[in-house]
């Protein structure tokens, strides 16, 4: 599977990663070679095998519905890049 520069740009956009134009070709090469490694999976027939998500094949434990947290806003917002009036702030988003 060979990737092209536009593929890198598209995936980088999906992942919201800025990649310098002059680094794109390095990424094309690196990612293409990683994908060749990954394509080795196709050598094996796995039809009918149930996918494994959790190594222990366990079931979800359920939590009682009760309020256990109190506000720690000040502590959490102390480490925030931009807060005001209790809100986190980002450049204006137009919907």
């Amino acid at each position, binding site marked *: 599977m060979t990737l092209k520069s536009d593929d890198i740009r598209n995936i980088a956009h999906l992942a919201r990663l800025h990649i310098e134009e002059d680094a794109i070709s390095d990424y094309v090469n690196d990612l293409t070679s990683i994908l060749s490694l990954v394509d080795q999976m196709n050598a094996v027939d796995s039809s009918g095998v149930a996918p494994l998500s959790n190594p222990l094949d366990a*079931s979800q434990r*359920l*939590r009682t519905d009760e309020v256990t947290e109190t506000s720690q806003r000040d502590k959490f917002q102390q480490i925030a890049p931009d807060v005001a009036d209790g809100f986190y702030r980002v450049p204006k988003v*137009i*919907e």
Partner: protein
Amino acid sequence: MSDWESVIGLEIHAQLATVSKIFSGASTAFGAEPNTQACAIDLGMPGVLPVLNREAVNMAIRFGVAIGAQIDPHSVFARKNYFYPDLPKGYQISQFELPIVGKGHISISPAEGEHKEIGITRAHLEEDAGKSIHDQFPDQTGIDLNRAGTPLLEIVSEPDMRSAKEAVAYARKIHSLVRYLEICDGNMQEGSFRCDANVSVRRKGEHELGTRAELKNINSFRFLERAINFEIERQIDLIEDGGQVVQETRLYDAERDETRSMRSKEEANDYRYFPDPDLLPVAISDEDIARIRAELPELPEQKKQRYIGELKLSDYNAELLTANRDTALFFEAALIDSPQLSAQLVNWILGDLAGALNRTGLDISAAPITPPMLAQLVARIADHTISGKIAKEVFEAMWQGEGSADAIIEARGLKQITDSSAIETLIDEVIAANPEQVEQFRAGKDKVLGFFVGQVMKQSQGKANPGQVNAILRDKLK
């Protein structure tokens, strides 16, 4: 319009009425100061992990049982990946291939006498995002994550509706049901019940579905109807003018009563769903389902059928009474005291009581008149203590908090006059005072009787029993 058919499906997000969030122990209470109900998990802090709220699962199962759906014994949570500032982890924990609730159905009554079954494709659990506030700061958007992590049940209908009216009837039915089940408070203003509509059109007889648009930002049933109607018109006009409907998200603007395309937030989002590795499949047994089924309250449909079958109410009245659980419960409470007066109670509840509630903007559960109070009023009419007309005056006084029906009747001296001799005396007075009209009546003008009745009622301050007045008058005027 007549060669066209509209095809409508609704996606409803019902905020589940748990006290804590779906994956954390922070509170879900509405109206708190920004970011005071967002714990580390809700903020998507590095290293935090989700743990599933049992009550959210129970509520979803309740809904599934109520719509006759299969409950998946091993449903799976999946990550829906996209970037938006009110989505702190950069993904929403939702369900994709294996939702907790499968196919079900619900019946609606879009107009009196009409019935239709609407299919429900699935319902699944997911977490809500936070809120983006655009008008707090001049050049920035403020993010409040209090709402992030609130449990949602996303209910997806089949595209079975063919008009805005049907869509509204369906939305109201689901609204009523989630309130009956006590899984959602249904408060559309506060955003705990949100409807998105998928609308497309096609020429009658065509089997393929047209391209659909998704309508968002609708927060009342009235707006839902308007938004859908606008969109249907827009799509038909567009196609008739040679254009093509584009698959997109459109926002409803209530002020202008129109739908508008959203700025490209939707650029064919690739959500890259995959099972969330921090959560395990939710195992639900037949015992769990049976237990929840046994604990279900009587559901609207069952109640409605019982009212029709046992209480002999009309389909229409039964539908109206059961649409809102609080109304039905009010009715049932009043019936306890006076089971034989069901027909009269229905009329008062759907008539004067509903009118007063509407006027004052109150919920029936906050009404100043309680079920026993209403039952007493209705009983006093039935036992002829007061007339129907006087009863309206008593009702108003009760509404204003003057006390029970009996107390008011006593205090204002409103008892109906049923003593024949007293009525005779009144009638004699009126006849004596109006010889001309007596002549007219005896000459054959029957309508004049009404004049005499009116005069007698006036003399008695409305308290004379109208039936007796009528009978005695006729007798005396012969």
